[in-house]
């Protein structure tokens, strides 16, 4: 499995990651190596094997639909890059 720079750019876009132009070749090489490494899985016969998503074969635990948290907006927004009047500020999205 060999990724080219164009594929690296596409994956980086899907992950919303900016990769510096001069680093793209290194990423292409390293990611190709990693995909080659995991490629050995394709040789294993897994017909009929139930996928294991998690160590616990248990149903998701549910809780009663009750309010358990208090409002801590101010506390939580203290760590935000930009807020105003209790709102998170981001660059304009609608003209």
């Amino acid at each position, binding site marked *: 499995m060999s990724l080219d720079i164009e594929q690296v750019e596409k994956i980086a876009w899907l992950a919303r990651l900016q990769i510096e132009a001069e680093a793209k070749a290194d990423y292409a090489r390293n990611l190709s190596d990693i995909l080659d490494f995991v490629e050995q899985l394709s040789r294993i016969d897994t017909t009929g094997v139930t996928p294991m998503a998690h160590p616990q074969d248990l149903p998701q635990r549910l809780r009663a639909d009750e309010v358990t948290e208090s409002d801590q907006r101010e506390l939580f927004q203290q760590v935000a890059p930009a807020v105003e009047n209790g709102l998170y500020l981001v*660059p304009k999205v609608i003209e």
Partner: protein
Amino acid sequence: MHKMTLAQLARGLHDGEFSSLELTEHFLKRIEQYDEQLNSFITVTGETAREAAKAADARRAQGQAGLLTGLPLAHKDIFNTRGVKTSCGSRMLDNYIAPYDATVVEKMREAGFVMLGKTNMDEFAMGSSNETSFYGPVRNPWHLEYVPGGSSGGSAAAVAARLAPAATGTDTGGSIRQPAALCGVTGLKPTYGRVSRWGMIAFASSLDQGGVFGASAEDCALLLGSMAGFDERDSTSIDRTVEDYQSSLENTLEGLRIGLPKEYFAAGLDAGVAERVHAAIRHYETLGAEIRDISLPNSQLAAPVYYVVAPAECSSNLSRFDGVRFGHRCEDPKDLVDMYMRSRGEGFGDEVKRRIMVGTYALSAGYYDAYYLKAQQVRRLISNDFAAAFDEVDVIMGPTAPSPAFKIGEKSDDPIEMYLSDIYTIAVNLAGLPGMSIPVGEVDGLPVGLQLIGNYWSEARLLNIAHRYQQDTDWHLRMPDVFV
């Protein structure tokens, strides 16, 4: 005081040999004196530690002290600590002051522990050498040119150099056991679900589990008892009684069935490490254990499965770092997409980006079945191997890592080489089993770890098995000369 185990320090406090404030000052002074060489701490919380120590002494004076009241401890910087920077070793969270405490932090404080600070780690726990940290590599106290292992390298190094008597860690593919082995300390990764993940910054949610580093198995028993337990805030936490891990430490090992997987002693294992591990296993025979050769036939597939599953889960978990609610935001974003791309591009280091991209690729349209689903199926085969083995034996033993610590820089340019330093530990996380590493010798002055793998919920038995070895040997008590 730093030469004493946590259990001894607890007795010292109880007997009034020293106060918690004296003990805390002693360790803070050691951190100040030595950590410039090691870089094992990202944040030292001296002031709050002194306050907590004074409060602990006051509780003791009023006769309200518990077993652990006033004992110092360091937390891996992956656990949220209210009012204290929680960086996860990343530039992304360099400015993040946690607004709440992780359950582990809360429980251990309530148990009486005094936090000395937050330890260095591989960025977002992704690494096996502590070289991916935004705050620079941690150095191995046994040889400063060598890595301490990772990702909990700061915790392992701090305990090995006795800058802290104990520390917490997390283990997703070996991140407690491998640094414990490379630094010559005792490390425990509990059964998945034993310790709450709430407030522990997520890397790969089906693999991550909190655990501990101590000078001995007895210390790990004390630590686990205080951190384990059901937490309704963690949907994967299991509602199961926490055992008294102290009470079974002395149990006999007569008739214990130890399985040695042939795959863990195959090509790729350093000869010196093999020799020390076999010597430790021979010691278990003298304690009445019976050795059986077993096979975990899919062992060689654990690393490839892991490097699909862990990146897939990480690419999902780390999507929360968007520059909006917390963490790094780039300067002057021209639009929303530019803000996402540059904030994440600047905030994450190379290894984190690589894993996000591998995960993104493996989960993308057209590749899901070939990578993610396939990996989950092979994960089942690996887990089945363990289930079959535990029909025959009580514990599985082998090396924790294929070699002693390697040099800083030696593997940092080759991700695959680095990934292979976890070949014996990864399968345990895939299955969700508990594991330990204990020091069993040295090769050229660098520590060697023996890995103990138990069946689900067998932490008490593992601690017992480790403790009995440590009753007869002193590898776990050795300290690097420079830090004595």
